[in-house]
């Protein structure tokens, strides 16, 4: 076989921000038609490396070669011009534009070239065609700002794949997706492969990578520590390379204990979103909430928390009715909601880590009128250590943390708040395996301490490993309740996806078996 230059090569890239080294000489080589997995702990530098490739950041040293020829990307437009497109981890869409406008942003089909008139009909038509080809159920004319996180991720995927001619980088593209939609994505990736594109895929879900990856590069602390074919290395070894240590068990055992019903939801209804939802959660219990994207789980927990209105039904906390619900009231009564969308409803991105971490419970830091900043820092250090937040700097602006570390800060906020009832919506989105184990331990500790936990997750192994009971929602209704210890992923998925008069065969489950 004659030597052929790889589609894309990055050579000894180094990059530092404000004197902190993030990438210390990383090389990466991807062939055409190959899916290259890029893995590493949170903050290892994966996103930064890819942003260098996409022209967002300029490397301090090192070079990029496309088909053997060195190139310089000083802005994203340059990378796009070379056919390199990227799905960003922190979704980067224009909320005021429509789905179609976002998909074609920068490459609008034109009608009168000289005037630069956008051919709207053509654009919508092509967007509709693409979305249906990809199996994404989205209206091209819908405003992106009103879409759920999952749907926005689909838009982002569509945009990048259309734009890519040589290489597409996917930075955790499935973090908001359920298995069903992820499967559509994998099909799409296989198709891109066939068309000879290089795909770089970043994920913390090793099961996903099993389905598509050809090669793997592992980063640790801004260095590459392993490179090889995907099949040559076991999950355990990957985790060891990532974390630099062995991981004993992902789902630690929890002392069985069940007390009073702390949270009781009765007939909660909001037309078109969820209907007639009744369940309760007892002290010491972890209840999982499963469903496909759009099943209404997020709407339900937000309504319980009072962040969204409910049209009927009641929520009882500790037996007392939670009238006129609002987040302020809920928090004071001991309810906490870890939101699904950390950018929109979670973090104050331009504020310091410590301020974000303590926001839901500033009260305990105050003595007299004065806020004890020492206490705040101590608390922040405590959670930074417990959750392995990197870099361990309480004053760091949260928006500058890596995605997974941002998620940990958000979780830390609710661990720090003295809540008794926790509603955790996708608590481990984008979190690496090792840190996930920490989070599970933390959740177990909460339950053992007498808290009630509702865990919404699209990651079924996580639900099965953590929950006592699993409630399943389908199209806004509670359709089943399963004992987590005695059920399987297939059974959960069957309940979640079953259409009236349809068999379970239609459900895509192969990514988990």
């Amino acid at each position, binding site marked *: 076989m004659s030597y052929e230059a790889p589609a894309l090569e990055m050579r000894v890239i180094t990059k530092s921000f404000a004197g902190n080294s993030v990438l210390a000489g990383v090389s990466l080589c991807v062939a055409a038609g190959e899916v290259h997995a890029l893995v590493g702990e949170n903050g290892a530098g994966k996103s930064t490396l890819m942003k260098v490739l996409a022209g967002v950041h300029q490397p301090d040293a090192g070079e990029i070669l496309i088909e053997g020829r060195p190139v310089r990307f000083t802005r*994203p*437009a340059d990378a796009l011009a070379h056919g390199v497109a990227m799905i960003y981890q922190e979704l980067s869409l*224009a909320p005021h*534009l429509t789905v179609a406008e976002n998909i074609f*942003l920068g490459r609008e089909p034109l009608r009168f070239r000289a*005037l*630069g008139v*956008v051919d*709207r009909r053509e654009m919508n038509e092509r967007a509709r065609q693409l979305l249906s080809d990809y199996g994404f159920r989205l209206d091209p004319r819908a405003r992106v700002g009103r879409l759920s996180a999952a749907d926005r991720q689909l838009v982002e995927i569509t945009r990048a794949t259309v734009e890519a001619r040589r290489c597409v980088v996917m930075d955790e593209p499935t973090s908001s997706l359920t298995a069903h939609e992820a499967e559509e994505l994998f099909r799409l990736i296989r198709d891109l492969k066939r068309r000879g594109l290089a795909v770089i895929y970043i994920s913390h879900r090793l099961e996903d990578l099993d389905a598509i990856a050809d090669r793997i590069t592992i980063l640790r602390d801004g260095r590459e520590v392993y490179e090889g074919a995907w099949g040559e290395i076991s999950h355990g070894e990957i985790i060891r390379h990532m974390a630099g240590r062995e991981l004993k068990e992902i789902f630690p055992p929890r002392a069985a204990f069940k007390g009073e019903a702390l949270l009781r939801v009765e007939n909660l209804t909001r037309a078109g979103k969820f209907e007639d939802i009744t369940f309760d959660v007892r002290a010491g219990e972890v209840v999982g909430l499963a469903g496909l994207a759009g099943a209404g789980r997020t709407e339900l927990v937000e309504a319980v928390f009072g962040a969204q209105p409910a049209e009927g039904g009641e929520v009882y906390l500790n037996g007392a009715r939670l009238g006129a619900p609002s987040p302020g009231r809920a928090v004071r009564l001991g309810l906490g909601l870890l939101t699904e969308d950390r950018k929109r409803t979670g973090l104050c991105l331009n504020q310091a880590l410590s301020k974000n971490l303590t926001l839901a419970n500033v009260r305990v830091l105050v003595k007299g009128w004065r806020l004890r900043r020492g206490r705040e820092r101590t608390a922040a250090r405590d959670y930074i250590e417990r959750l392995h937040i990197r870099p361990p700097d309480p004053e760091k602006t949260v928006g500058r943390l890596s995605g997974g570390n941002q998620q940990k800060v958000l979780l830390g906020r609710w661990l720090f708040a003295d809540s008794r009832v926790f509603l955790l919506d996708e608590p481990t989105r984008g979190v690496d395996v090792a840190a996930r184990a920490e989070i599970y331990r933390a959740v177990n500790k909460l339950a053992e301490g007498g808290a009630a936990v509702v865990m919404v997750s699209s990651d079924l192994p996580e639900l099965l490993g953590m929950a006592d009971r699993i409630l399943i929602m389908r199209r806004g209704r509670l359709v089943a309740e399963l004992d987590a210890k005695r059920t399987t992923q297939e059974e959960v998925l069957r309940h979640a996806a079953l259409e009236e008069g349809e068999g379970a065969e239609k459900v895509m489950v192969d990514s988990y078996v």
Partner: protein
Amino acid sequence: MSDWIKRFLPFASLIALCVVIAALEPKFLSSGNLAGVARQTAVITIIAMGMTVVMVAGGIDLSVGSVMALAGVVGAFAMTNGAPVLEGIAAAVAAGAACGLANGVTIAALRIPPFIVTLGAMGVYRGVALLITDGKAVVGLPQSFGYLAEGNLFGLVPVPLLLVVLVALATHFLLSSTRAGRYCYAIGSNVEAARYAGVRVSRYQIMFYVFLGALAGLAGAIESARLVTGQPTAGEGYELRVIAAVVIGGGSLSGGQGSVVGTIIGSLIMGVLSNGANLLGISSFTQQIVIGAVIVLAVTFDEFQRRRLETAAG
């Protein structure tokens, strides 16, 4: 049907306002008065068209009043030095565009907030206008120049109204149908997203400021034509009125929102209110109270209508 209501909706409070005023003072509806309102609001509306574009893209320009004065003076000088009227107008537009270019380039190059750059520019352009005229109005302009402000096309349509319509159509076309318009909303909505998508953000930002500057220049020519003098002190405080027109019309200080129709309505609400109050002979003290209160009410009214419609339709 519901689509029809949606199109009609932004007008609701403006129409309500007109009905109330007309009921109290029938002269409000006389064609002479309506033409007068068109003339009185033309300058603000034209600048507000450009401001809509800049604000949709997430920017702001406090220097428009000064640009208007400087451009008006430059155009007037051109005419007193013998240039024909059309060239004088062109000179004003060009001077405005040059100011806009300076603003845009400074904002894009220094990467400091447009608020600061244009705050500084406001002083600089005003100072230059005063300096080159020695603070005096430029007189001796050709009488035919007055046609730009006071003329009627076919003896019927006031020329400034025609200009407003043309500028509005152009701006609407720019914002809603062209690629630059898409980028404008994208930049104001999420500048990072626009950059990631390969949009040359700085280039477009500069273009938008130039567009606004040119329109401020045109407005300067009209304002000069109204009084047939170039005034270095014209347009003081206009920046607030222009920005108010955009915001009343649904624009936002944080970008990504705003429309030509909305801005026109915003400008007309303010113009009609002031005209109505004058016609009704409301004392100038009470007038300020009434206008202030009605602006808040009008926006609230529209906003509530919009919300109701949205929850109703989905």
